[in-house]
């Protein structure tokens, strides 16, 4: 049981580490206009609350197909910044889908083989979503609100209602399960996709907003909290299906509140990226022009006609 718990914790830690590496190395394509804001928190909360209900209402096959397709789409945009040819990226996604299907049908959804494939795919999806949030401007304030709302939802849906259990049952036989888990005889340790996502977002927001030191502390705190919950479940102190956000949520909320109070609103994405790239000392601030200058003409806004030395 300890080994199983350690495997799941290792997947969680890997998700955190790889998310940070992704944040530092790759730039996701973002919408031309718009920054992550409170409307996104609201929209996501509504989506997260309604999606499980949708999965339960829909026929099982359709629900599993929808979830798998959504996961592959997320995998697609996660791999989008990878410096490889498009065909190679598409091949990787096809191979992932094939591996998940093969593992589910050949080894069975309760096998370690299936768990390994599933967990890798779930970690990849989590890396992509968490980075999308943070790279489009999610701040600690947004995470604080989102964590608070999802904590309340998780307690209701998992501890009070059978909603989470029903969703796991429904999607349990699909080629992709919204969990990072590892099976063993008589016991399965698992961490929900949503919990892992919040853990990664917590660490990424900390690192982006307040620097690598705060990010490292958040990683220790977050992974430690998750490990404590998994250990509690494994030791029988906690029930088999426990709302992890009930523990992780307050940690995130308290940390974000504390950071905001002590350190302020946090850095913009531009400031974070600038901090990653050392500037030449003494360089004068001069933003370069966008490469594409496709713009509407406007009455009192100038357009470039003479660059320095370009007369």
């Amino acid at each position, binding site marked *: 049981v300890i080994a199983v718990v350690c495997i799941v914790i290792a997947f969680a830690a890997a998700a955190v580490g790889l998310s940070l590496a992704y944040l530092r190395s790759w730039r996701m394509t973002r919408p031309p206009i718009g920054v992550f804001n409170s409307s996104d928190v609201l929209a996501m909360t509504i989506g997260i609350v309604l999606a499980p209900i949708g999965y339960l209402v829909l026929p099982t096959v359709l629900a599993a197909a929808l979830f798998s397709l959504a996961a592959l789409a997320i995998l697609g945009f996660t791999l989008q910044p990878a410096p490889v040819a498009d065909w190679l990226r598409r091949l990787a996604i096809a191979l992932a889908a094939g591996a998940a299907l093969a593992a589910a049908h050949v080894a069975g959804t309760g096998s370690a083989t299936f768990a390994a494939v599933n967990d890798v795919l779930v970690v990849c999806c989590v890396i992509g979503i968490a980075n999308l949030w943070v790279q489009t401007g999610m701040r600690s304030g947004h995470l604080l609100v989102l964590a608070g709302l999802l904590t309340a939802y998780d307690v209701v849906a998992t501890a009070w209602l059978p909603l989470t259990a029903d969703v796991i049952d429904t999607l349990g036989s699909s080629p992709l399960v919204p969990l990072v888990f590892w099976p063993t005889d008589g016991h399965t340790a698992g961490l929900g996709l949503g919990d892992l996502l919040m853990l990664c977002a917590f660490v990424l927001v900390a690192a982006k907003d307040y620097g690598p030191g705060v990010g490292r502390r958040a990683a220790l705190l977050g992974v430690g909290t998750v490990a404590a919950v998994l250990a509690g479940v494994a030791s029988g102190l906690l029930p088999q299906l426990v709302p992890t956000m009930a523990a992780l949520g307050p940690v995130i909320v308290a940390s974000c509140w504390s950071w905001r109070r002590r350190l302020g609103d946090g850095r913009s994405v531009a400031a974070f990226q600038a901090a990653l790239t050392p500037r030449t000392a003494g360089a004068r601030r001069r933003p370069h022009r966008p490469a594409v200058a496709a713009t509407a003409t406007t009455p009192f806004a100038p357009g*470039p006609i003479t660059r320095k030395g370009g007369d």
Partner: protein
Amino acid sequence: MFDATVAQLRLASSLATGRRLNLRALEKVTDAMCATVAEFGSVSGDAAQAFSGPVLDDDVREDVVLRRMRTQVRRAVEGTSHYAALGLDAGELRTFDDIARLALTRKESLRADPSGFVRRGCSIAARVTTTGTTGRTTTVHYSDYELRVIAALTTNHLALRRLIGPGDVVAQCISSRATLAVGSVTSSCRSLGAVAELIGLVEPREALDALARGRATVLNVYASYLGALVEHGTRLGYGPRDFALERILVGGEIVTAGLLRRARELFGDVEGAENCAMTEIAPAGGTPCSHDHLHLEPTTGLIEVLSLDDERPAVAGEPGTLVVTPLPPYRETTLLLRYDTEDVVAPLAGPVHCELRHLPAVTRIVGKRRLAVRHDDGWTFQRPVQEALEQLDAVPLPARYGIWPAARAVGVETLVRHDDAATRRAVREALDGAGVPIGELRMTEDARDLRHPMPLRADLREHSFAGSGGGS
């Protein structure tokens, strides 16, 4: 992002159908663009399509413009006394040839009766006057809707071009009567997190002091007043170390290479950006590109270039007057059909390959028709003369000069520092090099001796108590 996406969809729907823009959606998208700049440091070029709609192919674009033109003609006939008297029929406008048969609207008509062009039932929020550099000032009425649309488009443009950004201090050395320009740039500064400071057209000595003390990073200025600043700044011993300027947004008049070169000698390694705007046709206007073209946004206004001689469409390379019809959904109060701006440009030959190649283009404005000279070899406009003069250090900035028909060519007079043989030779060579056929050349060291001086916005001087004590 979610709310910005919803707002963009609402805006796109208005742009596609030509219906009135939803101001809340427009301002939401503008706010989102400003937030994008603050968060990411820039916005991609694709963001422009949120405001102007997607890039259309020529057939679709012509269809859209024709539809909007019909709407505008119908509104003008039904809603304004000036066009009602002309008895136009919007239903007859099926092609661009039909549009070309509509009579031009002259500046004199608008000056004589500005309210005759105002659509009945519109709620007027501002009466905006032009600076009147080609004669008496002209009044144009705008609704609150139009003012907000213009402000949003200005912000969009400034953000896209990264001309103003968070933390900038934007000094405006333009006439404080230019309410549309001052208002929209000030509003943009507020949205973009910059500080706007209206210095006005005070004594250049005061403006230079304000620029230096205020550590302005952006200067929004008329070309001739920039010239005055350069001249006074050099004389007063200012240098690049006294200023924090990074960009100069210059327009309202002809901007020459010589002016920008000399401005950089005073202000340092600054970036120059030129605008092409006019109160009467806003928000239609032009954007200069890096290849010296003037690009015109076809969805905000119908643009025509008409021959100076007979008002037929000008052919490539032939100078013509820029005729503009501001279109809905951007313009709804002062309706102008085929407004003759008197600005002279020339259509370009062949396709262009610049960064704005998806927009129709003409040459840069070469001058005002009523200030140009017709002679045996054709026309001489202000730009070549001014380009020639302002490149010479012997000519104080802004170049004060005049042109007139003389000896079947062009008479040129100019203010110089020293009226001596060397200066005369340099001026003549520069004018020859610019292709100006000199019939007579006069030089003077006293601006009052000029007989045909070009009007300069720098002379719309505003007084202050500080300025009246010293003078310059």
